[in-house]
């Protein structure tokens, strides 16, 4: 397993993180989702997946959009 980290715009509060996790859980290849809202204001999602099965960035972006006004940074 490896982790891929993505910046996310619009994830500001725990409720945002929960909704985003809900929508990313169904993305093929994603084995685990962690969310961090960092002290510097940057928000990231960390996805665990198999080395040869990196999630498609477009699919991730679509999943975030379906969750709300969130975009990949």
């Amino acid at each position: 397993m490896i982790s891929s980290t993505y910046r996310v715009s619009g994830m500001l509060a725990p409720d945002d993180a929960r909704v985003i996790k809900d929508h990313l859980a169904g993305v093929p290849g994603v084995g685990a989702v962690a969310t961090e809202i960092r002290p510097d204001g940057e928000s990231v999602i960390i996805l665990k997946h198999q080395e040869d099965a990196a999630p498609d960035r477009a699919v991730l972006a679509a999943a975030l959009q379906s969750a709300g006004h969130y975009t990949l940074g």
Partner: protein
Amino acid sequence: MVDPDFPLWLRSTHLINFLLMGIVLRSGWEILASLPRLWWRNDCKPGTEWLRFTRRRLPKEEGVYTSLMDERSAHPLLTLPGRKNVGLGRHWHGLGVSLWLLNGLVYVVLLLTTGLWRRIVPTSWDVFGQAWDSLVVYLGFGVPAIEHFQPYDALQMLGYTVIVFGVAPLMILTGIAMSPAVRSRFPWYVKLWGGHQGARSVHFLGMVVMTLFIIMHVGLVFLVHPEYNLPHMVFGVTDTARYAQAFTIAVATIVVVVGLWIALSYLTLANRPRAHRVLVTLTEPVRRLALARFKPRMGRQRSFTEDDLSEFHWTNGLPPTADESTEWLAHRDAGFTDWRLQLGGELSGKTLQLSLEDLQRLPRTEYIAVHTCMQGWSATSKWAGVSLQDVLDLLGPRPPAAQYVLITSYGLAQEMIDHRPREPFYSVLDLDTVAEPETILAYERNDRPLEVHLGAPLRLRVESQHGYKMVKWIRSIEWIVDYADYGDGRGGTREDAALQAFNGRI
């Protein structure tokens, strides 16, 4: 004058029961939402569930998907508290069930001692024929004549008897069977229900029956001779002149109770750490009273054998990746030959570095046990390792101030409660749990070295508790004074951001 068939204690216990059933059912649905699948098997192999409430398809491969990914977020209007809070849901379930049991005990004792049991328990086989006649009337959208209600008709009597003396005890018995403390002490009892998943599935079916009964029971009060039912329920009198007054009070009461159920959800979500503190304070005495004395004896049990070993083992938490620990990755790539357990620390005044070979030279403990997650999944495995107590003894006598043992992982927590950057996953055990012979550091599963996704090279097993206490990919172990000094002060960073109880016995 109060009708002797509807005394105050009967009406009071019914009202309390209505309130508590809402808490128990809604928190139960929260727990179900955390793993919306049901199995009859001795494991939870994807694709073999007999019922599911999710459209998500699970990978067939082990160790590539955490069970938290299967969790569904339920609305706070429906569940208690809602929004993926299985830990708090379990606390509410525990509190609700404890009070429901107490209320039920009062009801049954008074029912038996006052002789009112004759109103609901049939004493003649004729009841079946009469109940059939009533059912035919209801199915034809009719209402049996008032003369059939003495004070209940045959169908009601059968229904009440089945619920009070059948379904309710069934729910209690299957609920108890899902406790790891009970399972590790009386494994035969869990086997009796078809294992953890059998008990969970029967518990679910009982819940469905109970829910349907409540809907029907409350509905019929308002549909079948309400002019008698409502004065009976509210005032305890047979006086149809007071029907309107009773109707108003009954409807208002239902609205207030439903409002309270929903308010509990939002009150809990408004400040989850506060809710956790309050609920743990209220439920911990019951856990201690009911379960603390159950010491595991997996090493001596014969109920679960190698024939019961599971084909599939879910996991919560995937192996550490580069952002979590490059050190663990290097050990993994080298076959863990240079891996060392850091044992000890400040309180011990020394730190020992133990290799796997060092641990394997200590007395070996081996047994077959069922692992259960707070979410509901389970798997049966043969574990082998070394007693945690034996390992701690290498440090010498317990430091006088030491009250707990802190076990830390190379991996990070899946989520922090405030979504701050994740911190290392850890768990804390109290002295009683450390002393249990089936609290071990496992290095083998099913006669093979521990798999990477299940915690290699070393993981904690605490058979009397749920899986959230069992640290995988262990980095260090040390004595500590108080777990309040670490992390968020709850004795562990867990899969639901540490809102589980410190005591994981149920």
